[in-house]
């Protein structure tokens, strides 16, 4: 079915003399268990078959994602509508060409670490895994728990008018739990993501429940924090929230749209020389595994910040041609709103290389008091180009002074991304794959930073 429909679309559009076509079939089987107040609320399945396609003619382009139509006749009618709409557009300033083929080899296509062989049977065990995590959290001292377990399977088939014809499938999962007391001030959290739930998940899910419950208990009698400038230790969740931003701005489309401050900064030292952040499409046991990009270019790990220096921008074929560069295998068909998609470069999975420090090493880095922050959300910008932002901590937050962890609350990180990057003091050895809601995802460790500005409400 999947290669038939992609071939059908390709044949039909090539008859219309388009210059380039990309067709991507996907079949998703996704499941989610959502829980709150210590009970499972919903246990859902989504079965989704869809086509993402892109076409170009005389520089004009259009892309979309559609459900599989009932018949070939209906499919052709849909394609005709998009084709006619495309002809009415002006040529795209973001498009030059797609990958020209012939089909290359894909080194990571045969990886065995991306499909859960027990995907169907583990689904039957997942309610017990969730309940075990809740139990572990309650035993550790919480009163209420909420969260989600999401897992799924994706089969993909990609064909292009330039000779690419390739299939791949993978599984993925992520889990988060928030532990709370009866009120709203005393909370803790845990989250993790991976690819093989049956192997990676069971122990981790239980441990995270315990971690969340322990943090919740330690947050008892948290005091209002005092605004000021502090050294901070960010958990992997907060590192993901903050340190995803600058690397994702290393994108020519972001520069063209005016929301990247990295335009002329290639070669500039943005962080200390022990900091390296890459885009890693095929890191095993993660949530993302892409051996090829949307144009069929083989992917590879790309250093974006290497030893603290801004090294590379991500490129697809079009931006590479525009900026006299090479495609880095980072082409995506991104959502531009209203059901339409745009072919543009993006990140597969950001990866902050681990350092050599344990959490104790980070705490004992110097004798200054340091604030540990377990989670944040709502990172927002006063000015994205200048890097002025704030993000608001939630869950565990502690002022560590003379070895004692004092729970504090109600502070906000209000600082500048460039300062925060430059002031990294030390990196943890615990890079892990984290994913929480829409706030953050990918591979991050604990990080210690000097002189971070924290504010509080004035009234």
């Amino acid at each position, binding site marked *: 079915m999947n290669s038939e429909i992609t071939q059908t679309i390709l044949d039909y559009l090539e008859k219309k003399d388009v210059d380039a076509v990309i067709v991507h079939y996907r079949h998703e089987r996704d499941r989610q268990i959502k829980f709150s107040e210590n009970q499972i609320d919903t246990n859902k399945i*989504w079965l989704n078959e869809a086509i993402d396609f892109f076409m170009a003619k005389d520089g004009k382009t259009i892309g979309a994602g559609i459900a599989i139509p009932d018949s070939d006749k209906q499919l052709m009618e849909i394609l005709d509508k998009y084709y006619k709409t495309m002809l009415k557009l002006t040529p795209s300033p973001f498009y030059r060409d797609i990958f020209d083929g012939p089909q290359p080899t894909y080194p990571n296509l045969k990886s065995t670490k991306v499909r859960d062989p027990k995907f169907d049977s583990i689904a039957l065990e997942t309610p017990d895994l969730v309940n075990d995590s809740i139990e572990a959290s309650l035993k550790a001292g919480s009163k209420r728990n909420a969260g989600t377990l999401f897992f799924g399977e994706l089969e993909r088939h990609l064909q292009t008018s330039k000779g690419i014809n390739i299939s791949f499938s993978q599984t993925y999962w992520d889990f988060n739990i928030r532990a709370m007391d009866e009120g709203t001030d005393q909370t803790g959290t845990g989250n993790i993501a991976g690819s093989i739930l049956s192997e990676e998940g069971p122990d981790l899910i239980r441990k995270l429940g315990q971690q969340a419950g322990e943090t919740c208990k330690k947050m008892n009698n948290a005091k209002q924090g005092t605004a000021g400038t502090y050294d901070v230790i960010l958990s992997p969740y907060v590192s993901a929230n903050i340190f995803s931003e600058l690397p994702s701005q290393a994108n020519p489309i972001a520069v063209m749209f005016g929301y990247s401050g990295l335009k002329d900064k290639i070669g500039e030292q943005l962080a200390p020389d022990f900091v390296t952040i890459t885009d890693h499409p095929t890191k095993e046991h993660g949530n993302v595994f892409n051996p090829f990009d949307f144009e069929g270019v083989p992917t590879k790990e790309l250093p974006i910040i290497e030893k603290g220096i801004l090294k590379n921008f991500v490129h697809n074929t079009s931006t590479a041609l525009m900026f006299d560069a090479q495609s880095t295998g980072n082409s995506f068909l991104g959502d531009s709103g209203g059901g339409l998609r745009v072919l543009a470069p993006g990140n597969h999975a950001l990866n902050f290389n681990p350092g050599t420090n344990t959490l104790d090493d980070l705490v004992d880095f110097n004798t200054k008091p340091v604030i540990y922050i377990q989670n944040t959300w709502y990172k927002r910008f006063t000015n994205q180009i200048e890097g002025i932002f704030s993000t*608001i901590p939630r869950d565990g937050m502690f002022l560590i002074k003379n070895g004692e962890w004092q729970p504090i609350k109600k502070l906000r990180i209000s600082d500048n991304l460039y300062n925060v990057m430059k002031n990294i003091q030390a990196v943890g050895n615990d890079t892990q794959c984290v994913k929480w809601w829409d706030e953050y995802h990918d591979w991050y460790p604990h990080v210690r930073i000097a002189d971070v500005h924290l504010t509080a409400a004035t009234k």
Partner: protein
Amino acid sequence: MKFDKPIDMIVGTEVAGIISHENVGHPSEGDRIMGREAAQAGESFWKNLEIGATVGSEYVSVSDDPTIIGSPGYYKYDDEGVPARKRKLMVKGTLNEPLLNRDYGARFNLESNAAARADGYDREPIIRMASTFVEPGDFTLEELVEDIKEGIYMKNFTEWNIDDVRYQSKYVGQECYYIKDGRIQENIRIKRPVLELTSVGLFTAVDGCTKEVAFKHTGTCGKGDPMQVAPVYLCGPEVRMRNIRLG
């Protein structure tokens, strides 16, 4: 210009709109109050309060209304088939009613007030806002301004965020003017003033609103896991607050 002492603020219709959405609309969601969104969008500071509790001055009321024709949040029936009506969330500074669907209406021993929306066939309807706004007051903008000795008119905002119980909020001004001796100084712009206030601190400081709500600020609100996006209005009149220390 630096402001070391508390000053008076007038926020414009766009700022009043986002305040109504973030500081009142979201904490009024019944499922959030009862913990269903705790792991994602968070809970609500209304959890620890009763209906009738005072969180603001008598000069400020906030409503949510899906029946405003032409608004992005308009509907005649919600996604559970309940006829839409205006919801008065906060009336003269006191909590009046939460947003409810059928499930949470029952849990609150009330009825649904038609707040169930889903953004697609494959998503469960959950409690969402529609068009949230600060209700109009009794003043013209000139009257609000002329009673200010020193202050700032924050016409719109650039950055905002708020904690997960919708209590500690931050709004950073974009186009802002100095007010001196009852007049907006059009040639004196104030750069990025920061309003970092609790919801109660903010609403208790309000002592006047203008007579007309500007129904024009659209937005998309995200909630739920998987994420659902709802088109909404975030509106208000101009609102004056007294004695505010900038962040």
